[in-house]
């Protein structure tokens, strides 16, 4: 059993004050009886104000009209309603696909990577992050299906042969996308469900009526025997290690949709990691936004979500922003130095073309603002500032995808096709619809499943204690696995 001990800053002259500070600061050092924590989580699920239902109804209306209504209208009238036009055949649908897949990366990153590295601050919000993966991938799937046009022929991508034994071409980047996104969707949903089982059993034990029936079915008879915990622990370890390369593969393959083409601006060997880091930039920022929203809108969440979590997420966002800047500059520098005239024309078009302000906004919101704000501990821990930085980072990452897809498609090796043909089309209300759908799914999930993995929090609290080195109280963590 490995034990590590870390001295914490802000030691006070009075060691009791310092202990009290540590307990207030760290959820892991402030345990409550398990029954009390269960009650807090159950109350947060079952206490719903009328405002919640009003917002849910508004979201549902936006989904019905903005997403499915617009989609149906587009199917009935044709893809000319979109902003696509020659030479920009890939337009906002692809921007939004990449955007949502990027958001989805946070769940796995926060849950799996931090689990592998035993980062204890992850415990209260891993489920909120995992939900993000599944819900965001659903939105990405909607964008892909919409982009297809004739969505009822989507089964042509399935790995089944036609009557002449002609299979889909598995050596095409579009089929890699199909395999990778489906692998990621299925694995992340399973990874969401496995650690949920003990919490569903907890909810089953404390519910009546339809909730009892629902949780009884979903908990599948879980009691918490040694054998059940052993199987679960082994499976979660396998998932945590295996889902990480899947996560990296998904956005790398999405980047290859572009990088495998011999187009100026797209044909880049660094697009894989650049896209992955970009996905983490938008995803971790979105996790921070969700965690802050949960903390301030759901009952009892102030116990589980604390300033230490904002602080940790803020640091992650800062590091990822620096990584994104590094990859962006690397990609830009090599293309600029290469001197290819078409690439030069494209880079000039990015900065000084009609969408130049979007290019500069991308740099400001992805680099300047996070760096200016997140270095400061007090600002990182301020929920309004962290939420704003997260929101702006997501706007910036949307801008990055916009620059890469429709703007870059305007400049190619055939000057007679140049021109800014992009115009916002029906993708705009559909995107707003997917945002509303994402929020609506989260809202409904918050009423149905425990958003805080109580057993994981308790496990963490069992492993933490305060020891004293001389007169200095320090946090001590035992590795209980």
């Amino acid at each position: 059993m490995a034990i590590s001990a870390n001295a914490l800053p802000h030691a006070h002259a009075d060691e009791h004050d310092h202990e009290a500070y540590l307990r207030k600061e760290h959820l892991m050092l402030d345990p409550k009886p398990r029954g009390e924590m269960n009650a807090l989580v159950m109350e947060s699920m079952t206490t719903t104000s009328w405002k919640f239902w009003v917002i849910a109804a508004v979201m549902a209306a936006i989904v019905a009209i903005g997403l499915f209504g617009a989609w149906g209208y587009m199917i009935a009238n044709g893809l000319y309603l979109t902003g696509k036009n020659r030479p920009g055949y890939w337009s906002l649908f692809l921007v939004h696909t990449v955007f949502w897949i990027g958001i989805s990366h946070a769940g796995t990153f926060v849950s799996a990577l931090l689990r592998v590295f035993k980062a204890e601050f992850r415990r209260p919000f891993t489920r909120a992050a995992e939900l993000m993966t599944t819900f965001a991938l659903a939105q990405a799937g909607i964008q892909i299906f919409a982009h297809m046009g004739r969505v009822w022929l989507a089964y042509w991508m399935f790995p089944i042969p036609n009557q002449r034994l002609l299979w889909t071409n598995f050596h095409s980047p579009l089929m890699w996308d199909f395999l990778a996104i489906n692998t990621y969707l299925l694995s992340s949903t399973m990874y969401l469900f496995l650690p949920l089982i003990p919490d569903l059993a907890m909810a089953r034990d404390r519910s009546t009526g339809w909730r009892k029936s629902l949780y009884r079915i979903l908990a599948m008879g879980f009691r918490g025997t040694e054998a059940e915990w052993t199987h679960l622990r082994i499976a979660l370890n396998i998932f945590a290690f295996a889902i990480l390369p899947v996560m990296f593969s998904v956005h790398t393959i999405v980047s290859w949709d572009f990088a495998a083409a011999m187009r100026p601006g797209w044909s880049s060997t660094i697009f894989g990691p650049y896209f992955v880091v970009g996905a983490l930039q938008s995803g971790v920022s979105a996790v921070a936004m969700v965690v802050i929203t949960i903390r301030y809108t759901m009952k009892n969440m102030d116990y589980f979500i604390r300033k230490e979590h904002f602080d940790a997420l803020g640091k992650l966002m800062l590091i990822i922003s620096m990584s994104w800047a590094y990859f962006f500059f690397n990609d830009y520098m090599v293309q600029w130095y290469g001197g290819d005239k078409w690439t030069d024309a494209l880079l000039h078009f990015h900065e000084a073309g009609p969408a130049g302000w979007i290019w500069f906004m991308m740099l400001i919101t992805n680099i300047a603002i996070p760096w200016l704000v997140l270095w400061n501990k007090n600002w990182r821990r301020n929920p309004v500032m962290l939420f704003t930085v997260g929101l702006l980072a997501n706007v910036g990452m949307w801008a990055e995808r916009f620059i890469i897809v429709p703007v870059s498609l305007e400049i190619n090796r055939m000057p007679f096709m140049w021109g800014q043909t992009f115009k916002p089309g029906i993708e705009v209300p559909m995107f707003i619809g997917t945002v509303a759908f994402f929020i609506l799914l989260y809202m409904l999930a918050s009423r149905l499943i425990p958003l805080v993995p109580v057993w994981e929090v308790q496990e963490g609290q069992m492993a933490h204690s305060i020891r004293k080195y001389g007169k200095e109280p320090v946090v001590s963590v035992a590795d209980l696995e």
Partner: protein
Amino acid sequence: MTDKNLLLAIFEDIDPAAHAVDALRGLGIHDEQVTVISGTPITEAMLGRKHQWSNVTRFSLGGAIIGFASGCFLAFATPNMYPIIVGGQPLVPVPPSIVVLFEMTMLVMLISTFLGVFLDSRYPSYTPKEYVPEISDGRIALLLDCPGDMEATITKAMTEAGAESVKRAEAQVI
């Protein structure tokens, strides 16, 4: 299970539960006769019990092999069923095939891991079971198959070890 005389001893904390496990061994109750149930994962080492067997890793490995074989079929066999040269590439190019092999291996491996938990834990199971809701409130329960003539002795030993309650376990719908 209905023929057995099952006792359920409930403990508030891990230390008395560990003492109780030792006491049961002292009374000649084998580890196989005792099932530990808890609302938080408690490793076997904490209670001084032997390691639990799990087939989940075997399911994962089996899934990885099946996934790899499926990937080989999709990447290498299907192009030969209706040969079409695309983009000047060989009929079966290796680098793009690696992507298919990787994704299929991981997909089937993770599905097998997931199903492995279900099969090893025998989920779903809605038959009545010996259980009390206090367990998910953080209690630790020892469910033991108690020889009829030792019930009083075991109850006393459990109580002395610190059990909150010791009672006959009854299967109930949970």
